[in-house]
C-alpha cells in the first residue's frame, strides 16, 4: 500500500466519523491538513466530492481561514508572533533580521525548501514577548542573536545562504 493510499484511508475514516456532514467541513479540513501537511487542489476536490459541496464553497472556506495552508511548507518552519505585545516589544526587528540572514520573506520559503518563515497574530505567551516559534519550540524574550543561532542549529549547522 502506498503512503497516499494510507492517507486516503485515514481521511475516509475522518469523513465517516463526521457522517459526511457539510457542517463538519472545518473539522475535516483540520484533520486533512494534519494528515497531508497541506491542502492541495486534488485533495480539496476530493473533500468537496465526498461532502457533496461545490468546490467553490470548500475553496472559499479554506482561503478565508489563515490556518489552512495551500502550499507545502519548508522542512522547518519559523513563526514570528506579530501580536500586539510582541510588536510593542520589538518583534519586527527580529523578523527583519531573520529575513536578511536567511534570504527569505515572511510568508515564503528558502529556495532549497528547508525553511519557511510565517507570521501569526498572537500565540498567547504575551508575558514572555517577543516570541518566535522554531518548529514546535517557543523562544520567549527572544533576541535576534538567540533566534538566528537557534535557526542555524535547527537547519543542522548548514551555513545559511546569504
Amino acid at each position: 500500500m502506498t503512503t497516499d493510499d494510507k492517507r486516503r484511508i485515514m481521511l475516509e475514516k475522518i469523513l465517516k466519523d463526521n457522517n459526511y456532514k457539510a457542517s463538519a467541513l472545518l473539522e475535516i479540513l483540520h484533520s486533512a491538513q494534519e494528515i497531508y501537511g497541506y491542502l492541495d487542489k486534488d485533495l480539496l476536490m476530493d473533500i468537496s466530492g465526498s461532502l457533496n459541496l461545490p468546490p467553490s464553497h470548500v475553496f472559499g472556506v479554506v482561503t478565508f481561514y489563515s490556518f489552512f495552508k495551500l502550499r507545502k511548507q519548508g522542512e522547518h518552519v519559523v513563526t514570528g508572533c506579530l501580536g500586539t505585545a510582541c510588536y510593542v516589544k520589538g518583534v519586527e526587528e527580529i523578523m527583519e533580521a531573520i529575513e536578511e540572514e536567511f534570504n527569505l520573506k515572511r510568508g515564503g520559503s528558502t529556495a532549497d525548501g528547508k525553511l519557511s518563515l510565517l507570521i501569526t497574530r498572537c500565540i498567547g505567551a504575551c508575558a514572555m514577548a517577543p516570541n518566535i516559534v522554531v518548529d514546535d519550540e517557543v523562544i520567549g524574550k527572544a533576541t535576534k542573536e538567540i533566534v538566528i543561532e537557534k535557526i542555524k542549529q535547527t537547519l543542522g549547522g548548514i551555513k545559511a545562504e546569504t
Partner: protein
Amino acid sequence: MEGLKLKLDDLQKIAEQEIDFQRAYKYRINVCCSSGCVPFGALKVLKAFEDAVKELGVDKECKVARTGCIGTCSVGPAVLIEPGDYLYQSVTPEKTREIVRDHIVLGLPVKSMLYKNEAYFTKQHRLVLRNAGKIDPSRIQDYISAGGYSALAKCLATMTPQGVIYEIRTSGLRGRGGAGFQTGQKWALVSRAHNSPKYIVANLDEGDPGVFANRTLAEADPHAIIEGMLIAAYAIGAEKGYIYIRSEYPLAIQTLQKAIAQAKAMSLIGDNILELGTFKFDLELRFGAGAFVAGEETAILASVEGRRAMPRPRPPYPANSGLWQKPTLIQNVETLANIPLIIQNGGQWFSKMGTPKCTGTKCFSLTGKINNPGLIEVPMGITLREVVFEIGGGVPDGKKFKAVLVGGPSGGCLPETLLESPIDYDSLTKVGAIMGSGGIVVIDEDSCMVDTARFFTEFCIDESCGKCTPCRAGLAREKEIFDKITHGQGEMSDIATLEKSSVFIRDASLCGLGQTAPNPVITTLRYFKDEYIQHIVEKKCEAGKCFKTRDEAEE
C-alpha cells in the same frame, strides 16, 4: 471513579473523600503547566519535583500537582506551595531539590527564590480564577472537592429554569466577551423563543493579539466553563452545546477534551444528568482556524456550521435565529465561569462586587512594557492607574509611560491623563476604548503612536471579512494615508481625512469588528495629535520607528 453514574448525593461524597485524601498531605506543590510556563520548562520542573520528593522521602506528606496558571507569567515556571501560598519564581529542575529540602523537609521557605511583588496580588480579586493554579485541571475530583458541580446540582434539584434566570438577572452579570450585554436578559430572550431545539455556543475564539485570559481559564479550570454551560443550558432549555475554540490553543483543547470526557463518564453530560431524568445535554468542541472576525456572534455561528466566518445583519438576533436558524445562546467562557459562583452564593452576593452598573470582576492579560506582565483578575471599577502602576509595577528600565491600549487591536490608546478612569464598560467607552476581551498593553516612549495606529489598522485590514464596504475599503484607504505619513509625504489635510473616514467606518460598518476598528486611529488622533503633526510638518519620529528605507524598497 470513571464510568460511575453520578447521583445527586454522590457529589458530596466524592468531595468529602477527595478532601480527606488531600488532607493526608501536609504540603502541596502546585507546578503551573499552562501555555505560559510549559515553553520555559514547566514539565521538566514538575518531573524534577516528583523525583525530589521521592528521593528525600517526603512523598507521603507532600503532593506534587500539575496545575493551571498562577498568573505571574513573566517569571515562569511558577510554583505555588501550600499551605501558606508561597510562590516560587523562575524555577528550574536544578532548584527543585533545594526547595523540597528546605521548604518541605525543614519547613524553611527559600526566601531568595520567592516572588517578591506582593502588590501584584493584593489588589486582585480572584473569582473566575478561583481555582487557577490550585487544582489539577485534569482531575474532575479536584474540581468537585473545590465545590464544583454543586451549583449544577442545586439548580437541578431545587431551582426552576426561571429561578436560575432570576438569580443571574439579580447578579447584574454582563457578558465578558466585550459588548457587555446583560447576561440574565439574554437568557430570558432565548428561553422565551418559540422554536426548538435550542443551542448554546461558548465563545473561546480569543483572537485578540495580546490577550490570553480565556485560554488560561480553559487550561486551569475547564470544568468551571462546562458547569456554567450546563446551568445555562438548563435555564434556557438547550440540549446541545458547542465550545468554539481557536486551533492555536492546543493545550486548552486537550484540557477541555479530557474534561468533557470525564464529565460524560460521570453522567454530568449526557442523556440523564445526575440520574434525575429531567435534564439532558450534549457538548462538543468546534475548532476555529485563525479568523479574528469569528469572535463576532453571527460569524461564530457561520463557522460552527462549517462556513466562512462572515457576520450577517441583525435582526434576527441569535436568540431567535442562531445555529441552523434555531434559538441560540452565545456566551463568552469567562461569563460562563462566573455562573456556578452566582448560583452557589446568590445573585445578591455577586451584585455587591464591582460597581452598581458593572458587577463582579474582569480578567485581563497585562502585557507590553510593564514590570509584572501576566494574567490578573480585578474588581470592576478599579482604575487603570492601579492596574498599570500598582499591580503591573509600572514601566521597566526607567522609561517613560506613554499610553495604555485597552481592548485589543480595536481598542483605544489612552494617555497618562486618563489613567484615573475606572475600568467598566461605560467609562471605557466614554474615553474611546472598549472592554473587548480584556487586553491591556502598556506602551512606553520607545513606541510611536502613529506607527501603533498603522499597525492596528493593518491588523484589522487582514482580519476584515470583506463583506461590507466601510470596513473593507475604508480601512485600506486609512492605511494608505498612514503609509504616506510614515514615509514623509503626509499633508496636514490627512489628519482631517483620517478623522472623517474613521467616523464613517465606525458608524457604517456591519459588525463589531468594523465598528471598533477605527478606535486606535480615533484615540491616537484625539490624545496624541502632536505626534501626527510632528510626522507631517517636521518629518520626524521621536521613537525612531518611521521613515525607514526598508518599506520604501518594498513598494
